């Protein structure tokens, strides 16, 4: 059941964003395009001059690119898992934020694989992956898994925006060019909300929600296995699959909280996205923080306690050369959200958002500390007189491309919000069923 009035009201609220681009937004988009342009220049430099322009060398063969790959893929899986779970459990507070989680899933999924491509020395031979693919290689698993995931997330997103698109098609007040109307009407598939259509849509959405959760777990485990199937000390760990999945969801909750804060401010959604939602996401973040802390602790504890020669030297590097990043990512990155959300007085929107920011940066460093120090401490000690072959430092090319990725992420998010509202209007307009409102009350008592 939908409440028509609520829906109209919501559509009216979102109409300005869909209708025109404000000058501030235009500046923002141009800025993002500028950053992306810098990335394109860096990419051209890397292609013409070779990978020598990056900080990667024979020991540290994967650098910031792979860190970003893990990071963006993690956000994507997080988006998929959060939106899928909230959808399946019909959690009431999902309604204003589930669309953002879906956008997060698909947008970062489109950017993430780009980073692994930057690691590849011969992009001109990329199609060999399809032509000569070997099933034994975790990279092939990853190629299959990511492409499957992209399709799954696209279908899931489409199912989720279908009702809103239909609403936009039917919303006569919307002042948009005729071609856009046409696009909406085409994409809406003639959905009018008949019980039969609604039933089928719900069924498909639930199936896809289950699928995206399952695939997200598999795909991110596959990504973790790229590292853990090798014999490298620090990577050769059985815990890596679940550890990566948890870290991914953890980082994603952080990004989602920030997206909530940004859109709340920019699109004036204060009345829809309230402290309640921030606290709910915050609680989720705390649960994941605890899990993440637990996995991190297990992983390093076993390495440290057994202190096999190579594990020991890795731990030593982490606590000397990488002392601050290590403390930041694995201590502060866990404790801050625990404190902020745990202590009732600190539980404000700003604080939760700030701790989410800390979580994101900490998680980025966490991945950095998984990839780089391991490669810097192989079984055979690195004996080289060239400092850049011993220790890795990213170059401007890598950082530019990293910035370009973040800019592209923001750009796609901005553009997506200009096409379909960042909030699931149709779901918001839905009249909650009695039992779910009970559930919601139960949640409310917690807040």
């Amino acid at each position, binding site marked *: 059941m939908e409440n028509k009035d609520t829906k109209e009201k919501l559509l009216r609220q979102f109409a300005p964003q869909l209708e025109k681009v404000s000058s501030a937004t235009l500046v923002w988009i141009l800025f993002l395009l500028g950053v992306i342009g810098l990335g394109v220049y860096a990419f051209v430099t890397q292609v013409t001059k070779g990978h020598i322009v990056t900080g990667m060398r024979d020991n540290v063969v994967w650098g910031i690119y792979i860190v970003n790959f893990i990071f963006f893929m993690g956000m994507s899986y997080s988006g998929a898992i959060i939106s899928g779970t909230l959808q399946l459990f019909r959690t009431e507070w999902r309604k204003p934020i589930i669309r953002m989680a879906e956008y997060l899933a698909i947008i970062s999924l489109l950017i993430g694989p780009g980073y692994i491509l930057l690691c590849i020395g011969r992009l001109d031979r990329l199609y060999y992956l399809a032509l000569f693919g*070997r099933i034994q290689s975790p990279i092939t698993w990853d190629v299959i898994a990511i492409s499957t995931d992209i399709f799954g997330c696209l279908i899931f997103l489409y199912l989720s925006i279908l009702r809103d698109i239909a609403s936009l098609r039917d919303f006569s007040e919307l002042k948009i060019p005729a071609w856009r109307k046409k696009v909406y009407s085409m994409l809406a598939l003639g959905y009018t909300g008949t019980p039969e259509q609604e039933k089928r849509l719900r069924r498909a959405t639930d199936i896809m929600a289950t699928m995206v959760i399952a695939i997200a777990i598999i795909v991110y485990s596959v990504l973790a296995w790229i590292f853990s199937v090798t014999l490298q000390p620090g990577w050769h760990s059985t815990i890596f699959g679940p550890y990566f999945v948890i870290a991914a969801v953890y980082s994603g909750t952080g990004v989602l909280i920030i997206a909530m804060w940004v859109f709340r401010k920019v699109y004036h959604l204060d009345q829809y996205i309230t402290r309640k939602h921030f606290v709910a996401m915050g609680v989720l973040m705390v649960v994941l923080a605890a899990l993440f802390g637990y996995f991190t602790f297990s992983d390093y504890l076993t390495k440290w306690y057994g202190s096999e020669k190579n594990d020991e030297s890795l731990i030593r590097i982490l606590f000397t050369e990488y002392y601050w990043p290590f403390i930041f990512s694995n201590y502060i990155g866990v404790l801050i959200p625990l404190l902020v959300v745990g202590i009732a007085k600190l539980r404000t929107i700003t604080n939760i958002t700030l701790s989410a920011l800390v979580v994101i940066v900490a998680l980025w460093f966490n991945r950095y500390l998984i990839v780089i120090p391991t490669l810097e401490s192989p079984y055979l000690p690195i004996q080289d007189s060239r400092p850049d072959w011993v220790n890795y430092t990213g170059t401007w090319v890598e950082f530019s491309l990293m910035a370009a990725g973040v800019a592209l992420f923001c750009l796609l998010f901005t553009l997506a919000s200009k096409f379909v509202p960042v909030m699931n209007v149709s779901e918001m307009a839905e009249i909650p069923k009695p039992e779910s409102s009970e559930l919601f009350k139960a949640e409310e008592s917690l807040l």
Partner: protein
Amino acid sequence: MQTQNKIRIIFIFLLCCYNLVTSAQIKKDSATAITPTITFTYLNSNDTIILNANIFDKKEKGVFAIKNAVIEFFASGDKKTRNLGQAKADEEGNAVLKLPVAKGLPQDKDGKTTYTAKFNGKDKYRPALETFTAKFARITVNFSKEDSLRFILVTATQVDRKDAIKPIQKEKIIVYVPRLFNLLKIGETDLDVAGKGKVEYPGNLVGDSLGNIIVIARIEDNDVFGNVQGQSSISWGIPKQYYLAEKPTRELWTPIAPIWMIVTLIIMLTGVWAHYIYAVIQLIKIKQISKKKPDSSS
């Protein structure tokens, strides 16, 4: 003795003179003329004489082979000197000449032949010359089994002037089996007065795929005979195990994957894509319902 030596000396002297003249000419042409070094090796193998002249330029930095240098070979005895032919040095500076028949080579009174390898000079290189004297000999290899022991029997003979065959006495014989890059020593013995020697055949030597193994007996670095070898084949080797590359295994590192991996992948992909298709079918149904509806209303 004296006459033959004299002749040999005269021959060498003449060659040297020739060299001096030509080298003097080259000296005029270029101030950086280099005298190459030749190492000359002689091997008498189953009645084939192999002469190898390795020509190189010895520098401080190391040894540089003189490619394509033309080496002329001569054999000389008491009276005659015969031109044996010429060979071109390869990439490593080796110029190799094989004489299939040992008979009819000039000999001195003791049946010895002096071999000469001569380089006439080319471009910046001065001429060079190297000689080697050896007497023709022959080694035959036979096998015998005594109880459980297996032996390699070696007989060595030398050919005197007028083709009189005499045993080679008291010389050291080394027995080898040929291997991919080199010869592997499997034993040695001293010849008796009858020119015979006996070496026990060691077990567990790998032969070819049928178990055939070649055994080589050699007199090496001998003042009179130079290097002489004889060889024979016997099926005493352990048959070599050929790895069957045609039969691929399903290891992680082989071109084809383990079955469980393929099965798992197919199951997972089918499961996931079946659900995708199901979801898409629902979307198609939604579209179809919407098309029907206007019909029913009108």
